[in-house]
């Protein structure tokens, strides 16, 4: 029987309202070789007046973090989705998002992983 590649999607923010400086909880994924972060602006959101940038961060130990280099803008239209792809990330992943003053993003953020 063929062995299929393992895959798993983790919801890392479920209906959270992002404002100010946001860091998602650390997620361990050393088993995966590729990852895609998705951010879905929820349909009942008030459209933010400007966008924000999500930066992927990696870590050797889950305690100390550094920008990986991948970054992407959050959607500003309700029900829209944006994403960022990551490779060669070691064992830990999270997003750092600096939300502009007066803006709130109500989001579902997911991390899709594949071995």
């Amino acid at each position, binding site marked *: 029987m063929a062995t299929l590649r*393992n895959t*798993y999607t*983790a*919801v*890392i923010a*479920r*209906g959270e309202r992002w404002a100010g400086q946001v860091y998602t*909880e*650390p*997620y*361990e*994924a*050393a*088993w995966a070789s590729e990852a895609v972060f998705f951010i879905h602006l*929820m349909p*009942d959101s008030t459209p933010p007046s400007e966008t924000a940038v999500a930066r992927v961060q990696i870590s*050797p*130990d*889950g*305690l*100390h973090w550094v920008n990986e280099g991948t970054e992407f803008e959050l959607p500003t239209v309700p029900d829209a989705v944006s994403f960022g792809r990551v490779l060669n990330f070691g*064992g830990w992943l999270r997003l750092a998002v600096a939300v502009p003053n007066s803006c709130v993003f109500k989001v579902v953020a997911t991390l899709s992983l594949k071995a």
Partner: protein
Amino acid sequence: MRSDSHPAHGDPRLSRFDPMERVIYFDDFDQGMNGWTCLVGNYQDSLDTMTTSYARHTQPMLSQITHWDSGTHGSFDGTYALKIATRPVAGERNTAIKRVTFRKASRIRVETYFACKPEANELKLSDKDVRTFGVLFDLQDRQQRVMPHLRYLNTLNGERRHQWQFKQRTTPFRAIGGSEIVTHDHLSPEDWEDVPGGHQNLCYNEIPTKINWHYLRFDFDLVNMCWLGFQCNDLVMDPSGLESIKMPAMANLDCMLNLAFFCESDTAKRTFFYLDSVLLSGDF
């Protein structure tokens, strides 16, 4: 092989377990998530209707248990363990759940090898940062829904307790949005009771990055919906006086056999509950 040896003991992967006659599932987290997922609360129309404590739950992950000072620890028999992590908030909890149904009401047994440690972000012993960890079944036959809960209370508000506990009561049900959907917080901090004789010191070790795996077994009778006892390492407890949360059978839950593990932090530091593997068996 001894003539009285357990049939599973000839299989190296199973030899550290004592399963009943039929293995219902054996989840080795070196192979993947095996159907373990996040326990979200009920909701209707908006996620905002979800009970706050459930809304805070996050997804389990596969951890190789890597530390800043000693690198990868690994699991009991491989690289990966299922990891349930709280947020860094005192009193915060998290869970992981696997949902199946039963085909025959029988005695069932869950066994696991586990470890529970705080995040190693201080150069301190940190043994009082974990509040609790535990296991629960969520079951239903044609008459009732039954939810046996078992937890180890490590620390409560900074005081070491080292006590196994159970609970018989949940919070009042709350209707969501006037619909048929209701919710309750069966894992709430209230109404936990000490298991008589259930004090036990576990092998925490001497710094947060040294991990020892522990054995846990929990037996339950689906015919009579009653406890049959549990074991953690060398502590073996009979079911005397141990009861479950019970309520009338609910719609849409017939033959439910859910198994969940959970943990809570006692300080503003993440608690990590690791499961090397989980074996559920039945005597049919």
